[in-house]
């Protein structure tokens, strides 16, 4: 059966959707991704959908679900490279995906994830320092 590969880069997970998503594939991705986040303790998930040209309400909902699930597992999700047609379709379907972070391309999405994880580390350092006093 088809599976969408999940790549690991440090504490980030990178998913590139290169094929047309069908419902079963989306559910499989959701399962794989959540277990992978828990397994490696990922802090960020980057989903590249620049090759995705067809989207329906189920795929949109699954993306939103993945983001919410990742949030529960303490990982920030960024969806990058959405095509104009896909964006228009989702808006027309009434799915504005309010909980999802978006970026233009993998580069800026990666930058955003690294910045947020760095900021969190600094916060943690600060907490650590203050605990010593």
């Amino acid at each position, binding site marked *: 059966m088809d599976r969408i590969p999940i790549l690991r880069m440090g504490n980030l997970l990178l998913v590139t959707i290169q094929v047309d998503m069908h419902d079963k594939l989306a559910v499989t991705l959701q399962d794989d991704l959540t277990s992978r986040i828990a397994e490696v303790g990922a802090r960020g998930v980057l989903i590249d959908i620049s090759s995705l040209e067809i989207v329906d309400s189920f795929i949109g909902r699954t993306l939103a679900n993945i983001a919410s699930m990742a949030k529960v597992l303490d990982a920030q999700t960024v*969806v*990058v*490279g*959405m*095509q*104009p047609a*896909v*964006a*228009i379709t*989702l*808006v*027309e379907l009434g799915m*504005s*995906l309010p909980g*999802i972070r*978006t*970026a*233009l*391309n993998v580069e*800026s*999405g990666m930058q955003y994830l690294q910045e947020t994880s760095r900021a969190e580390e600094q916060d943690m350092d600060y907490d650590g320092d203050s605990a010593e006093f």
Partner: protein
Amino acid sequence: MENVLDGIRANQDALLKEWLQNLKSGIRRRDLINDSDLNSQATEVLSAISAVSPGTSLERIDSAQWQPVRELLAGISSSRAIQGFTPSETATFVLALKAPIFGLIRKQRGNDAERLFADISAVNDFVDKLALHTTDSYIHGRDQVIARQQEEMLELSTPVVMLWDGIVALPLIGTLDSARTQVVMESLLQAIVQTNSRFAIIDITGVPTVDTLVAQHLIKTITAARLMGAECILSGIRPQIAQTIVHLGINLEDVVTKARMADAFKLALERSGRIVIRSGKSNGAAVSAIREQ
């Protein structure tokens, strides 16, 4: 019925003369077309009718035999549309042919009331159909003009301007309807992808009114841009429009709005890590520079 066609063919000149007389007394817009043009058009129509092969039915003008006549009338009516004739004046051109043919039939049939009536009703139907065809072509010609103008307007009305690296602006001018908003949305999103822009400024200074539908369209565009990873700033909201938006209860809370495009541009520069500073004076005018951070 063939006899009617034969009669028309045999008496072309007399018919033409009478038709022209009718036309000249009937059409008041003498300024739009001169006598010689009218003459040649009428002659062409009559000879086209005469040229139809003998024995053709008058009832079915959509058959292949009547093709030349139909085309000729279509050409005449579209030229009438351009010259500024009204649809009824254009139809009158054909309808004025009725009376001369009726006169001809009366002369041919004499006292044979049965056949006289049959012929007259056949010719009546025939000329009416020709007139309807003329009106149809007239309206079709106008529709084409309107459709072309609409397309041209759509093309003209949606320029996406690149203000800086990664900042595009979309100055909207004129009323927004669904069709236009679709084009606006598509061209903005396309420009965001092509120029890899993180910021898009939508300026509505030139939009005369904002109702719930327009606001809905704007919000859709902004949401779609956000889904693609770009941030939209709405600028150029005039005081009256701000009042309308609040009175209509439109929720623009999730949208960044600025009064002027300059403010929106400044915000976009700041968010992309740039600041505007004044670098000095030349010819008394202040020179500003944008410093990349």
